[in-house]
């Protein structure tokens, strides 16, 4: 260590101490009353040791953070981590090999198909939930990630889907399979009705209107007792396979699945069916969304997010393009709702609170807005991790919040970079005006 470095180190250490002391005092003010003085009826219990402990931890942490800045290795690591976060988008090169990706995707699909046979029923239900969130994440990704429309009421369409199957079964004898397209259409319709008047609005206003709409839907579901059952909720039917039911005892005339195949009854088969259907839909949707990005519709969404005025100058009707994104997202959420209701066997309005919208939004943002793989990973992280953290039930939400904040600081552009497809020069088909002129001589730009 050279002399100046030593000097710098001691200076940093001194600064660190000062910062740490400051952080400790602030922490003491923040944590002191809330943690040290516990309300009990109209009186107080004193636990003054707690805030001092926490302030100590904060001060120590702050000091170590400053100090770690002196170690070149730590500094380099930090710089590398932080540097990555600024490049949100990369472009593939035309020659890049796609084989690795294809193998990876194939492996994922095989794993996904085998998974239900390898895990317990409990984990199967968690996997179903995770896949539902993948579906929702992909849907909201279209709205927020691609089209750049901040939607805080996404859960409304999810609720529409869930209630379509539940109420449909109750009033019109709607089955699981018919409910999927019906819910998709009705949710898209709901999206259209909401969006058409508000899509001309500026971004953040759209956010609050959608938030309000989400709340309205939930409140109506909760209050319209005669139709929706209010807080008591509605039972939702299980799926059937070619008319075979997945119940222990079939309703009049039907044959349960397990009797038909001479198996012992287990609700595993029901979850297996839901999982497999859901998995196929998720894979198809993933492929669809992936292709969408390179389709005119998807490109128009992204262009709209990047610059609405330029889009209009190119003849793109921003209202209908936004509307298409909104409806597509709502449709996905509607399908997700059907699976959710069928999986849970029961729906009530408490499943469709703002927290749910925030969760889906967090999945999209943490995944990296617009990155499909990122959204899928984030959806799994957000459903599996809380389940694993069940032991720390009290701190679950706290950890969840801390992760959200830290992720935003560390990687505001999300977990994964967005990769854009590269285009190869195609075989010419476009009839070129002025072909008589040699192409390259005309492009004087070369000399610039």
């Amino acid at each position, binding site marked *: 260590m050279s002399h100046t470095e030593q000097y710098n180190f001691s200076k940093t250490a001194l600064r660190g101490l000062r910062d740490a002391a400051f952080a400790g005092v602030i922490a003491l003010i923040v944590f002191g009353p809330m943690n040290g003085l516990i309300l009990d009826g109209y009186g107080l219990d004193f636990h003054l040791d707690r805030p001092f402990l926490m302030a100590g931890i904060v001060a120590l942490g702050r000091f170590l953070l400053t100090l770690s800045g002196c170690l070149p290795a730590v500094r380099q690591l930090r710089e590398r981590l932080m540097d990555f976060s600024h490049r949100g988008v990369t472009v593939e090169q035309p020659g890049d090999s796609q084989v690795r990706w294809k193998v990876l995707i194939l492996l994922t699909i095989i794993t996904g198909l085998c998974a239900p046979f390898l895990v317990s029923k409990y984990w199967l239900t*968690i996997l179903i939930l995770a896949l539902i969130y993948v579906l929702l994440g992909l849907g909201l990704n279209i709205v927020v990630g691609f089209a750049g429309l901040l939607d805080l009421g996404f859960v409304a369409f999810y609720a529409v889907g869930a209630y379509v199957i539940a109420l449909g079964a109750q009033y019109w004898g709607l089955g699981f399979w018919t409910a999927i397209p019906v819910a998709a259409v009705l949710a898209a319709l709901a999206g259209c009705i909401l969006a058409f008047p508000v899509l001309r609005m500026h971004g953040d206003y759209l956010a609050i209107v959608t938030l309000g709409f989400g709340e309205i839907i939930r409140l109506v579901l909760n209050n319209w*007792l005669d139709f929706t059952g209010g*807080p*008591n*909720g509605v039972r939702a039917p299980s799926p059937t396979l070619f008319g075979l039911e997945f119940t222990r005892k079939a309703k009049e005339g039907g044959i349960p699945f397990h009797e038909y195949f001479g198996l012992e009854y287990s609700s595993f088969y029901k979850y297996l069916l839901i999982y497999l259907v859901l998995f196929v839909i998720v894979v198809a949707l993933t492929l669809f969304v992936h292709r969408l990005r390179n389709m005119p519709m998807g490109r128009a969404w992204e262009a709209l997010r990047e610059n609405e005025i330029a889009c209009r100058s190119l003849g793109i009707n921003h209202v209908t393009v936004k509307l298409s994104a909104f409806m597509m997202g709502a449709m996905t959420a509607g399908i997700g709702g059907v699976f959710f209701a069928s999986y849970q066997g029961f729906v*009530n309005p*408490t499943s469709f609170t703002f927290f749910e919208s925030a969760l889906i939004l967090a999945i999209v943002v943490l995944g990296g807005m617009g990155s499909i793989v990122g959204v899928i990973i984030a959806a799994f992280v957000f459903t599996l991790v809380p389940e694993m953290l*069940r032991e720390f039930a009290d701190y679950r939400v706290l950890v969840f919040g801390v992760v959200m904040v830290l992720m935003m600081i560390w990687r505001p552009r999300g977990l994964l970079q967005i990769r854009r497809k590269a285009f190869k020069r195609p075989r010419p088909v476009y009839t070129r005006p002025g072909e008589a002129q040699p192409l390259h001589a005309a492009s004087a730009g070369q000399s610039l």
Partner: protein
Amino acid sequence: MISKQFKRLAVSAAVAASLSAGIASAETIKIGVAGPHTGAYANFGVQLWQGATLAAEKINSNGGIDGKQIELVKGDDACEPKQALAVANRMVEVDGVAGVVGHFCSSSTLPASEIYEDAGVVMVTPGSTNPAVTDRGLSVVLRNTGRDDQQGIVAAEYIVNDLNAKRVAVIHDKDTYGQGLADAMKAHLNKIGTKEVLYEGLTRGEKDFNALVTKIKAADADVIYFGGLHSEAGPLVRQLREQGVDGTFFSGDGIVSEDLMPAAGGGKNVDGIMMTFGRDPRTFDEGKQVVAEFRAKGFEPEGYTLYAYSTVQAIAQGIDGADTTDGEKVAEWLKAHSAKTIMGERKWDAKGDLTRSDYAVYRWNQDGSYAKAN
């Protein structure tokens, strides 16, 4: 001193863990305790857990169920249906419980019970009073508490016959329990010839009910019946009294909590509140000793504590009697026989409801205690 305490705690926890692990490999029967251990209704979860823990300790020290020790498993549903479902699946699949004490909130019990039905695990709820819990014809579901319609009938009879009320305002909190209770009360009230003057819902979690209170005042009600929990009942009472509404406040067993008095603004406002509640479990002769034990530990066994205790006893006797952990058989045995618990003898009908409803009307006093109204 704190660190010493902590060490002792850690050591005892480690010992307990190793002990239970040792026993687990030998012979244990797992019983789940599912309820809101976190979230806004966590205090009910505490009651359940305390009651169940002591019951299990007692049974274990007396040799367990047929020689097997009981091991309790905590399941937190935070009173959310989605979490209740995950908890139920986890109890059944991962923990492999033989019986479940719970769930607490009716909105959680309804979806979760379907899982237990599928898995054939007996579920006895100590707190869900919504009629739908047992009305759906599930074979493994029992209820160790009353039904809202029983409770509603008792309340309606009392309001009309004893309070001689002519003008009744019915308020609920738009939740499965609260609205179910209010509707049951309203139905019987109408049946016996009194029409309510007001029927409204308030939003759970809000604290400003002034607009509603003014409406009650305008309706000139002499009884305000509220279906809901103490967290809304407290502020509602406070605002009623502040606006000078002096009708009788009448509610159900959802307000049984020590938090009610401070929330209602002190003894003056609590005085005279009426409620329906099962016979105070602390008054059973069989339970005297257990109540004393709880108090010795510094825990007042109020609310659902003893219900949970009694439920663990019932499940244990059911498993013992049926000599199997098959939920359907245990439930059948319990319905056919009866369980002797600290809350007296519990008998069930074919649906799984208690045969005898012991709902009575209680009146709160200025000091925050409540006693049977005469």
